[in-house]
């Protein structure tokens, strides 16, 4: 079954949240199951996170913001400074070139112009053939940007009445758009889902695992969607608006995530000569925004899903890893202890034998028993080797492989070296004789 994936508040009334819940939800799960119904989205049972998780994610977000801030600053500040310098130079050049203008007059003019621009009036060029920013198609587009919460801001209401109306309009319009987006997303998901089902049926014949199918269908979804909703419009914008490739993609992404800076707006070229197609252009752009938003919301919620899966998997893996590590450590230490014990017993065993053989030798050769304690390593090995040659004394084996059976059964016998498998019969006889 799908794991929980309410990336956004599972609420239809907020377009962004609603969009995030719309289909298709091709979350990367190992279960070969299908996309979710809208009804699932509101299930809070499985989604309440612990405070620890929430605060962890929160700190991550803050960290993300700080990282973003530093990168933006590093990238943009030099550029900004050079722009400032350039425009100041322009101003000074202008003043120098036109000696009758004093700087305060110029300041005043520029100030007024800037205010006018903020109000949406472009003082550049002739005013006669300029089109209004508030004709029907532009107002329609503006209303659309308000409802979708994109809010470009290239046009904005400046009268008090306009602003109050904007508030009321948005209050009603945003939920409305939310419903619409959910509906569109659903249909989109259904259409796409049918296609995916067909593809999956084909792939299943090739006996590919379910996980792979899921991955393939997710990738297909991303690819296909990107092609239709991102690449194609970007190309069209590049052609019509004469932006660069990067700027077109930038515009598409910023618009479809509803951020909507407004530095690039489709259809902004109107202001001088209004092309005839502009009347149809803006509504078409709005329609693209609607469908593209549904797609983008699905993508973003998928990314959010992956975050959740990754965090869940990481948690599981960390838990598993810890369990494994504990197990491994326990095993290793147990084995180590065993080996040490065996080794020490082994070594003790060897020394016992060496001692007994020495005694035997000393009794035979008449060597003083006290020398036993002063035996140098050299003599020790000599005697050991001697013993080896004479009695087939097995070498001290320091391997970690368990001795077949003996250890487990007769640990105590080892202590005096009398394990039946190990000791030589002769040896035992000799030792017993010595005793």
């Amino acid at each position: 079954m799908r794991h929980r994936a309410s990336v956004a508040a599972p609420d239809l009334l907020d377009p962004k949240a609603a969009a995030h819940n719309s289909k298709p939800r091709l979350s990367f799960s190992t279960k070969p199951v299908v996309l979710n119904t809208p009804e699932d989205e509101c299930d809070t049972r499985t989604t309440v996170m612990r405070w620890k998780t929430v605060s962890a994610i929160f700190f991550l977000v803050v960290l993300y913001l700080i990282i973003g801030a530093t990168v933006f600053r590093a990238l943009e500040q030099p550029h900004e400074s050079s722009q400032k310098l350039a425009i100041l130079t322009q101003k000074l050049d202008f003043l120098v070139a036109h000696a009758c203008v004093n700087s305060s007059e110029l300041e005043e003019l520029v100030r007024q112009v800037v205010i006018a621009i903020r109000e949406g009036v472009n003082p550049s060029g002739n005013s006669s053939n300029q089109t209004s920013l508030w004709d029907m198609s532009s107002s329609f587009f503006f209303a659309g940007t308000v409802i979708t919460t994109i809010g470009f801001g290239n046009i904005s209401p400046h009268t008090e009445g306009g602003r109050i109306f904007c508030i009321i309009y948005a209050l009603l319009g945003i939920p409305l758009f939310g419903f619409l987006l959910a509906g569109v997303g659903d249909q989109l998901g259904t259409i796409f889902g049918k296609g995916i089902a067909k593809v999956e049926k084909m792939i299943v014949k090739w006996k590919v695992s379910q996980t792979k199918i899921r991955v393939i269908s997710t990738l297909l979804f991303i690819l296909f969607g990107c092609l239709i909703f991102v690449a194609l419009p970007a190309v069209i914008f590049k052609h019509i608006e004469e932006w660069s490739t990067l700027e077109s993609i930038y515009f598409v992404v910023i618009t479809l995530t509803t951020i909507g800076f407004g530095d690039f707006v489709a259809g902004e070229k109107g202001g001088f000569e209004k092309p005839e197609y502009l009347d149809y252009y803006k509504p078409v752009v709005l329609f693209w925004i609607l469908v593209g938003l549904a797609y983008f919301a699905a993508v973003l919620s998928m990314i959010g899903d992956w975050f959740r899966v990754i965090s869940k998997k990481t948690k599981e893996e960390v838990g598993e890893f810890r369990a494994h590590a504990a197990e491994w450590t326990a095993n290793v230490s147990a084995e180590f202890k065993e080996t040490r014990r065996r080794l020490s017993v082994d070594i003790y065993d060897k020394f016992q034998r060496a001692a007994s053989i020495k005694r035997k030798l000393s009794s035979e050769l008449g060597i003083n028993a006290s020398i036993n304690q002063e035996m140098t390593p050299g003599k020790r090995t000599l005697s050991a080797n001697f013993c080896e040659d004479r009695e087939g004394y097995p070498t001290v084996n320091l391997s970690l492989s368990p001795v077949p059976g003996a250890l487990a059964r007769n640990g105590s016998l080892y202590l005096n070296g009398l394990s039946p498998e190990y000791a030589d019969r002769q040896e035992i006889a000799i030792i017993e004789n010595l005793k």
Partner: protein
Amino acid sequence: MALVGRSWLLLIGFILFYVIYLLFGALIFSTIERPMEDKLRLEVEVLKQEFLNQSCVSAASLENFLFKVLAANKYGVFVLKNASATSNWDLASSMFFANTLVTTVGYGHSTPLSDTGKAFSIFYALLGVPFTMLVLTACVQRLLYPLVLAPVSLLQRSGLEPRPATAVHFVLLLFLVVLCFFLVPAAIFTKVEGSWSFLDGIYFCFISLCTIGLGDFVPGMQPEQKYRTLYLGAVMVYLFLGLMMMYLLLRTFHKMSDVHGLTTLLQLPRCEDSDADEDREPIVDHAESPQRQTEKGASNHLEPGSQVSYNTINKG
């Protein structure tokens, strides 16, 4: 089949209504704003003419100069004397910018100028937006219990029926949110930002908290802003909290309309919620999930409001 047809019909109905709503809005905006725009345009023309008349500047060079000034202004670089003190990209402003990017508000008062900046913004947004949504949802879910479920049960225990209880609670919550996140901040903004009126403050709060973010009003843009870093930080916190409360409000509204039967009427998803579950791990067992799936599947078929979904296609 009837269900499929009905859902399609509903969708078309929605689209139609949406288009009509847009047209209506366009009409009203146009009627309100256009006269003002014409007046302003006239004023600027007059100003330009006056300037040209009394000086030796030719129209062409003035145009050229203005064009450059406006291009710079579009990116937030101001040529006026007193506007060049603060950078748009010092750490506080950059963080504010990153915040507007990630919450999708997107004022646009400062936008990336360099190509690298634009490319970075794309990736930053693609990762950051779902991330932020995740955080907000998580926080809202945590808040749901103390702010919604507990008070509602309290109301119910004090004798109200469930349906009126939810309605009463929702109204109370709405009132509280409007007070704390619109009226009070608007008053503060009016005080701190010299040139904003109270209506401007409310307008700004609304536009920001709905994440529309037109950008005509942006806090902290005054040239001599005291404690700018602190101020921007406070605004960021306000935005985050405000967004959370908006989500909470919507969620409560959804639950309430659930209880009142509005959602089934309009064939919308219902909110099945369980109040008691708090510290649940966000892990859905593979073991439990198939049965939940089948449960839901079964109930889906019975539910009058169930729409055709991928689930049903696969089963069928």
